[in-house]
């Protein structure tokens, strides 16, 4: 058999196999995308952030290892309180591993809870207004990270929960927090307290008192395991606020409520 014929035959087999497998691969790829695989966007922006070698490794199927390297670097920067550098690295890490909820969650926590406190304690900035503004900016960065994390992981409860907590504790957006906790509660594997947290926050959301009351009452009627001090306290508060007739009210003994200074009305 001549060399040319052999070459043509091998090329023919490979091309024929290619033609057969391309529709299969295209379909398989679509199935993987639907199952949230291969979601990382390896574009030129990321290439500039992580360098050529890191980008090559990420392309070669070692995204997780590259992301871990950057994560360790961000941890070192945290110890040196270099918040700007940390955010830069967090953006790279989450771009490489968008399905890793721990990266989104911890990155948002660093920004909204650590960097914001550092901004408020910044001794180089004497003006309180500017310190407050910087603090608020870090809250928003944390919120943005969680929202982007949710966009990449709409099927997991954890980031909704973290967003709810951030909105509740840092931005005092109780309506938003209620919606976030309710979204978390709807997902599989969600913690049992998500639905309670959603109801608590709804009770603090102006204009939704009736809705919150109905939900708290529903939870109360589930049995004693739901009769937690905060639930009883919020229920008692709404009964009074909504002027629920005495005959319809749940009798909540004072000794089952949290101490007065823990109640927030």
């Amino acid at each position, binding site marked *: *058999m001549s060399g040319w014929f*052999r070459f043509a*035959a*091998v090329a023919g*087999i*490979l*091309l024929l*196999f*290619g*033609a057969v*497998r*391309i529709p*299969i*691969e*295209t379909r*398989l*790829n679509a*199935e*993987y995308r639907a*199952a*949230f*695989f*291969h*979601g*990382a966007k390896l574009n030129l922006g990321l290439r500039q952030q992580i360098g050529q070698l890191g980008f*090559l490794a990420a*392309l*070669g*199927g*070692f*995204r*997780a*290892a590259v*992301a*871990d390297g950057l*994560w*360790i670097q961000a*941890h070192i920067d945290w110890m040196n309180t270099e918040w700007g550098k940390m955010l830069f690295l967090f953006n790279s890490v989450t771009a490489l*591993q968008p*399905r*890793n*909820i*721990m990266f989104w969650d*911890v990155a948002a926590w660093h920004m909204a809870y650590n960097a914001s406190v550092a901004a408020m304690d910044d001794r180089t900035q004497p003006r309180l207004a500017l310190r407050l503004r910087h603090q608020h900016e870090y809250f928003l960065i944390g919120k943005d990270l969680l929202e982007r994390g949710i966009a990449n992981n709409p099927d*997991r409860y954890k980031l909704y929960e973290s967003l709810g907590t951030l909105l509740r504790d840092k931005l005092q957006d109780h309506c938003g927090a209620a919606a976030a906790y309710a979204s978390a509660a709807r997902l599989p*594997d969600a*913690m049992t307290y998500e639905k309670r947290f959603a109801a608590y926050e709804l009770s603090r959301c102006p204009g939704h008192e009736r809705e919150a009351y109905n939900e708290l009452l529903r939870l109360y009627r589930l049995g004693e395991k739901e009769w937690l001090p905060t639930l009883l306290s919020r229920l008692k508060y709404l009964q009074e606020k909504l002027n629920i007739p005495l005959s319809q009210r749940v009798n909540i003994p004072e000794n089952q409520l949290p101490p007065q200074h823990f109640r927030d009305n």
Partner: protein
Amino acid sequence: MDPTPTPHIFFSPARIWAIASNTLLELVRQKVFYFLLVFGFLLIGLGAIAPEFNFQEQFQLLKDVSLGAMSIFTWLLSVLATAMLLPKDIEDRTLYTILAKPVPRFEYLIGKLLGVLLLLLISTLVMAAVFVLALYSRQQLAIAETIRNTSPDQVQDALREIHAATFSFSLIPAIIIIYVKAALFASLTLFISTFASSWIFTVIVSIACYFIGSLQGVAREVWLANGATTGHLPRIFLALIALIFPDLQLFNLVDDIVAGNSISLVLFGKTAALGGLYTCIYLLVAYFVFASKEL
């Protein structure tokens, strides 16, 4: 003495097994398993920096690094071990001794590939065992500390989170797919070595195939995209890449699985079957070249 000669069997699993076991023995004698020490050191090194991080981060780092290292090591082992098979047999003249006997060339190639696949299987299993042991010991530490430091009403939720963050069923298909990808590469490297002039050429071309294969999916999407702005020549070039090279992104599942994605058995089965098909096709074309090779 029996006067009738034993008829020659066209396809003999026993002959293939003899070649495969010899290939495995030769590779083991070359001390290829030393790389397992590197894998072990890597996990020990990771253990040294682990206390800096919380448990969730520790589990994540351990899984990422271990499975990433398994992926790199099995791939490198498949390329390096296979690239040297034919040149070494030619240099030692073992090839001529074998082929002078009634051993068909396809049996020789299947035997050689099977030897490498066995080596890869042993390596993958050992690395997986070390990984599981490391993850389990880290998990037990985390459980002990959580029970000690968590209030009784929260301990169940905390333990549930630890269990979810460590072992999941999807780790098994992830490790199997690492092996399938390495097998695919062993077969591809064997094909390259049938026409290569030296083992260095085989290694370089095989590594290049790895990176091209990682981008094959992009080439295929651009080629198949309707109304693409690319000209005819680039489209032909993209088509050739899509048709000739394997789509390795389909086998890069570890990154997403350690991030918490779960893979269905159907999807896993399809991917493993595609990997098996690639391995067979590359073996077939390797035989096609090797069959008419002048030795």
